[in-house]
């Protein structure tokens, strides 16, 4: 990177620079783990209405077969059997968000070759946008970067909106995680095909892949393989958390802002994660469903950290066994250390939107006493949305949740955790904000 690049490198204001910890797994090739004995498939692995099961207890299902259909007239996608085997039960099982959720449990058939079912090959270049969007829905694809928003729904636009540019998010700004990094190195053809499918589906003119500049090898690997028509570009952006938040990446690449609490389509954009598009490019031509994903298994006390392909629904216990977890006590996190979810049970499965399993022991931050806010303004300088976390935190202390929402833009917070990370008083600001939002939602429901 030249000196000039350093001064003009694309970025957004504020944000933080946590240690990256990516060297643990970033050079490890993706490997397939042995199939688990059993998979647990929650019916709601996406934002929207849960899928509706169409199998019964004891039924034999084949890998890739639809076992739950999308709820009708709602934001919803199907669930596919991620292993061949028999349905053990349909019951409440531990979910990634802590509470138990309705899930289909399948016992893996050890004698099955586990070849996923596929349909007749279809050439996306001969399909209409409507056909593509419908087929994307059939793959069960959701945002694999963590949000879990159904991918087809991003392409369904109201009549008055159109999309000119597709932003492909290859930032992976969460420390520790290297899933997207490996996908961009190992699945370039799938990724480019996926981008072209998405462009066709929304009639976009161009597409920009944004990659943090700590992954310049990816940039070098992708650049020569881009189509000659120049409609897909790749750009480096500053390595800074939360660069991979879609609002931040859009600001960095194009200098524009997604309107508050609106969607990127309002300004003619659609943002997809690289993992999502690589899967789209692989699944759609063969009419397959989403049955597996790549996750980073990393952190402390692991003899074999790495990037692994696992069936959706693999319980964490199997993953820890395969990665040779040797610890006695640890924090187990689905996702990265900034926004990941804590898990309480090793029965919790990897879902479609799980990007990684992080084990923290020595690296874990030991919580210290919470001190009063000294108004150092570090949180204001960290907040990518330009909120005033200091004032919001003081209001949360006084339980003025209504004021937080009405005067201090609480609902614009997307909970990146940068404020909590920098707070020298150890105030768990983002946790306060999550609580405030939940209580406000309850209050609004009560008030009708």
């Amino acid at each position, binding site marked *: 990177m030249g000196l000039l690049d350093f001064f003009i490198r694309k970025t957004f204001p504020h944000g933080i620079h946590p240690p990256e910890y990516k060297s643990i797994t970033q050079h490890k090739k993706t490997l397939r783990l042995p199939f688990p004995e059993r998979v647990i498939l929650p019916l709601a692995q996406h934002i929207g209405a849960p899928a509706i099961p169409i199998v019964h207890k004891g039924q034999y299902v084949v890998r890739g077969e639809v076992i739950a259909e999308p709820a009708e007239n709602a934001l919803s996608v199907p669930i596919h059997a991620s292993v061949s085997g028999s349905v053990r039960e349909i019951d409440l099982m531990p979910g990634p968000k802590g509470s138990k959720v309705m899930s289909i449990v399948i016992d893996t058939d050890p004698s099955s070759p586990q070849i996923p079912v596929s349909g007749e090959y279809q050439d996306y270049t001969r399909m209409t946008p409507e056909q593509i969007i419908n087929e994307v829905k059939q793959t069960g694809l959701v945002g694999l970067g963590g949000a879990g928003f159904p991918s087809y729904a991003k392409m369904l636009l109201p009549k008055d909106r159109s999309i000119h540019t597709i932003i492909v998010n290859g930032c992976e700004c969460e420390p520790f995680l290297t899933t997207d990094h490996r996908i961009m190195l190992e699945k370039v053809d799938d990724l480019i095909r996926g981008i072209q499918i998405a462009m066709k589906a929304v009639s976009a003119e161009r597409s920009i892949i944004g990659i943090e500049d700590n992954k310049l090898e990816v940039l070098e690997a992708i650049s020569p393989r881009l189509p000659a028509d120049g409609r897909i570009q790749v750009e480096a952006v500053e390595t800074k958390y939360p660069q991979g938040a879609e609002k931040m990446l859009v600001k960095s690449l194009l200098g524009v802002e997604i309107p508050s609490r609106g969607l990127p389509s309002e300004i003619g954009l659609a943002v997809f994660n690289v993992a999502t598009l690589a899967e789209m490019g692989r699944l759609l031509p063969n009419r397959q469903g989403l049955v597996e994903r790549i996750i980073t298994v990393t952190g402390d006390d692991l003899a074999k950290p790495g990037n692994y392909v696992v069936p959706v629904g693999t319980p964490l216990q199997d993953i820890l066994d395969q990665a040779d977890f040797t610890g006695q006590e640890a924090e187990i996190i689905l996702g990265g250390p900034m926004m990941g979810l804590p898990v309480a049970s090793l029965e919790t499965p990897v879902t479609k939107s799980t990007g990684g399993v992080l084990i923290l022991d020595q690296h874990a931050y030991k919580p210290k006493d919470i*001190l009063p806010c000294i*108004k150092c303004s570090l949180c204001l300088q960290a907040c990518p949305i330009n909120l005033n976390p200091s004032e919001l935190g003081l209001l949360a202390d006084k339980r003025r949740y209504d004021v937080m929402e009405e005067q201090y833009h609480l609902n614009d917070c997307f909970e990146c955790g940068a404020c909590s990370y920098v707070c020298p008083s150890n105030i768990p600001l983002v946790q306060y904000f999550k609580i405030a939002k939940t209580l406000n939602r309850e209050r609004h429901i009560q008030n009708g």
Partner: protein
Amino acid sequence: MAKHPLIDLRPSPYIHSPLTVEKIMRNVVYALLPLVVFSVWQFGISALALIIVTTLACLGTESLFCRLSGKANTLKDYSATITGLLLAMTLPPGFPLWMGAVAGFVAIAMGKTLFGGIGFNVFNPALVGRAFVQAAFPVAITTWTPALAPNRFVEFIPSTLALPFMKPAATAEWSAHIVDGFSGATPLALMKFQGIMTDSQSLFLGLTEGSTGETSALLILLCGFYLMWRKMLDWRIPASVIFGTAATAAVFYFYDPSHYPSPAFMIFSGGLMFGAVFMASDMVASPVTPLGIFIFGLLVGFLTVIIRLFGGLTEAVMYAILFGNAATPLIERYTQPSIYGARKKEDS
């Protein structure tokens, strides 16, 4: 292999910046130490005794109130130490020690614990303490003694050891005996009451009469740069205070250079540099909003010049900062940052 590890549960984020309140405050103490050493070199054992007394008074008061309120002892966060050091730096070197102790007590008791302790003080506690003794002991706090007196390491300034509630010994004769023709006036007083300007270079280096730790603008700046480099001092506050002072002084200077002092004199004299770097930048009592920080700094700078030129006293920086502290909630109210993607009124 442990089949069933103990799982710790905690919400995100799971990693944290290494910066803590205690670390910030400790580094502010480090940054004040060169000023302490310089002031002792300049004013001798009287300055040393004063620094020790005010600091102990602050620590003792903090400790006492922690015990009275049944809260955990907060001495370890270094904030009371800072208040003690800051306070000593702003007092005349020959200030009677018992008055220093009173100032330290008031600073913590009325400037800090009364409002709820660290994080809740409306005003900079050290300035509250100083404002109190300014009103209570107007003579002692405007009695200046010569810098670099030859016997400063063996002999106390006569006023230092005054007994409580007794009139301190007069120092005028003592000072005149040590330095021929000593006027007892600081550069600001010379400017204000006699129209004599001290040259900027001696002000910058600090080899003049003045408060214990406020004289050397150069050293204060160096200490400030250390804190800014460690990201423990917000550069925007000193910068805007200095800019506000220079800009306001420039207006008067260009209007009538023979009557009004130059901006350089204004920046380097009195407590301005110390106030800008160490006093106005008190995080708790200054705004957090980006625009608010600049408005606060400019206001403090502007008020400093106005009070110096038109007020009855020379202690302009203290009152300017206290006023700025008082205005902070109001400034913040009207300078909330505009958020990412904010919609204009009509489209929401």
